[in-house]
């Protein structure tokens, strides 16, 4: 209780100080990205997302969450029937982030407490992962565990908590590693300013992950003009097939 009051007092002082000399003091907490987009080229093998920012004092602990686009995800489970392994069971999870990483100084997240962590989804294990249809609890637990485990194996979710480096009392930075099989789309970076066990401020930024180069053009055609794409494919096949006979006939 005392700690809670203490943080409120500290926060109020910061707020007052900030409002009195608004132009000269830095804001309580600021978040910045080194790049506002990631281009996946043909030889892409993963990259880093660099996050940095300012905070008003050293009491403030930043917690940074990186999330990929949220989509519905179907988990399937194989079972053996008549000797063959078939996909027999399935569960759909709504609005699942394609990628999830978190960074914070040691102990900060634990101090926040389970309730806050679940509410703000701080940590891959704390993602809500709502099933689309009502399921038995045992089934839900199994599928949920499998989802987190598979995502972890693919390097898309991280059970580890990344490091946040304090460059000084007011500057901090961190970076996230993105794997080679990076899903495309809009990513969000959520930054929280935490004092003791209270979140005092929050900021969200977005950046795009998109494909670049020949692969991107091909994909775009395939998705947006599929008939044309198919026809071109057939034409290429005809031309190359015919060409090969002509070329080798000259021998």
């Amino acid at each position: 209780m005392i700690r809670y009051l203490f943080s409120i007092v500290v926060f109020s002082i910061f707020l007052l100080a900030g409002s009195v000399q608004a132009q000269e003091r830095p804001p309580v907490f600021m978040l910045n990205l080194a790049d506002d987009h990631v281009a996946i080229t043909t030889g892409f093998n993963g990259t880093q997302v660099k996050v940095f920012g300012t905070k008003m004092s050293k009491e403030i602990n930043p917690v940074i969450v990186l999330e990929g686009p949220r989509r519905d995800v179907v988990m399937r489970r194989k079972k053996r029937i008549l000797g063959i392994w078939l996909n027999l069971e399935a569960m759909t999870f709504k609005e699942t982030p394609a990628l999830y990483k978190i960074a914070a100084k040691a102990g900060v997240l634990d101090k926040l407490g389970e309730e806050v962590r679940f509410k703000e989804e701080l940590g891959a294990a704390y993602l809500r992962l709502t099933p689309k249809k009502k399921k038995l609890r045992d089934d839900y637990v199994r599928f949920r565990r499998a989802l987190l485990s598979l995502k972890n194996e693919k390097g898309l979710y991280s059970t580890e908590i990344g490091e946040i480096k304090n460059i000084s009392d007011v500057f901090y930075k961190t970076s996230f590693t993105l794997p080679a099989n990076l899903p495309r789309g809009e990513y969000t970076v959520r930054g929280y300013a935490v004092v003791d066990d209270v979140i005092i401020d929050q900021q969200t930024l977005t950046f795009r992950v998109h494909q670049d180069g020949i692969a991107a053009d091909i994909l775009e055609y395939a998705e947006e003009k599929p008939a044309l794409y198919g026809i071109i494919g057939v034409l290429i096949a005809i031309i190359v097939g015919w060409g090969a006979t002509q070329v080798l006939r000259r021998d």
Partner: protein
Amino acid sequence: MHIYLPIAEVSIPVELFLGMALMVGFISGVFGVGGGFILTPLLIFSGIPPAVAVATQSNQLVASSITGVLGHLRQGNVDIKLGLVMLAGSSLGSIVGICLFSLLKYLGQIDVVIAVSYVSMLSIIGSLMLIDVINARLKIVKPKEGRERSWYRRLNERLPYKMRFNRSRIYISALMPAGIGFVGGMLTAVMGVGGGFILVPAMIYMLRMSPLMVAGTSLFQIIFTSAFTTILHAIVNKSVDMLLAVILVVGGAMGAQFGVRFAKYVSGIQARTALSLMILAVALRLAADLVVEPEQIYSIVVRG
């Protein structure tokens, strides 16, 4: 050199796939058949998702059939009227096949269905070839077929819409070639094979066409069917990987050229033995993959 395939969403060594296509093209050059039903399983073994393998293979099929068709057209071995009737059937078959494909994909069962279909088909073809070769080695001659009316001839007499096909010199119900075409279309759509191994015997025995006309007309049918199926796959399932297709087409076309030249030096029986054994080996491997407990029983599919 590794290339990332945008639609298959895997990174592949180009040389491996070029080599596979070359080898399969070579085989098809030597034997006149083969290609689709060997290449598609090989693609699947190499990590290409079955749905993408089937769709991309139908694209490759267009290229490998082109040379044959042009040659046959020039020599007048194509019964165009019959071919068009078959095409009517196969277009419908492709559409039905693609719908089935999409449904199975949505249900998460497409991989298993493709694998099971291939295991059945390859084991039947491989065994028949092997039996054929064994008979030839043991110099067993099969007795001539009796003169009784087989089931398809009786069926043919009952069916309506009889038409005269002058090139092939037959008078049959149009529903028969259309029906054969329908089956061929479905096979192309669901399995990515040309269907020649079904079309050719069916046309010889059920339609009673001369083998020469069968060769040209079936190629005519296959080429248009695979082109149509490729476009449908691209539109409906978006699973045609153009980059992979180009690699396969180039390798396959070159391999076929070498194969055709090499055909003279190959002893028929030895070659057919090797081919039948290889087909059976592929069938066995596919079956094993179906039956062995997978490393990971869970899988993720992202929707929307």
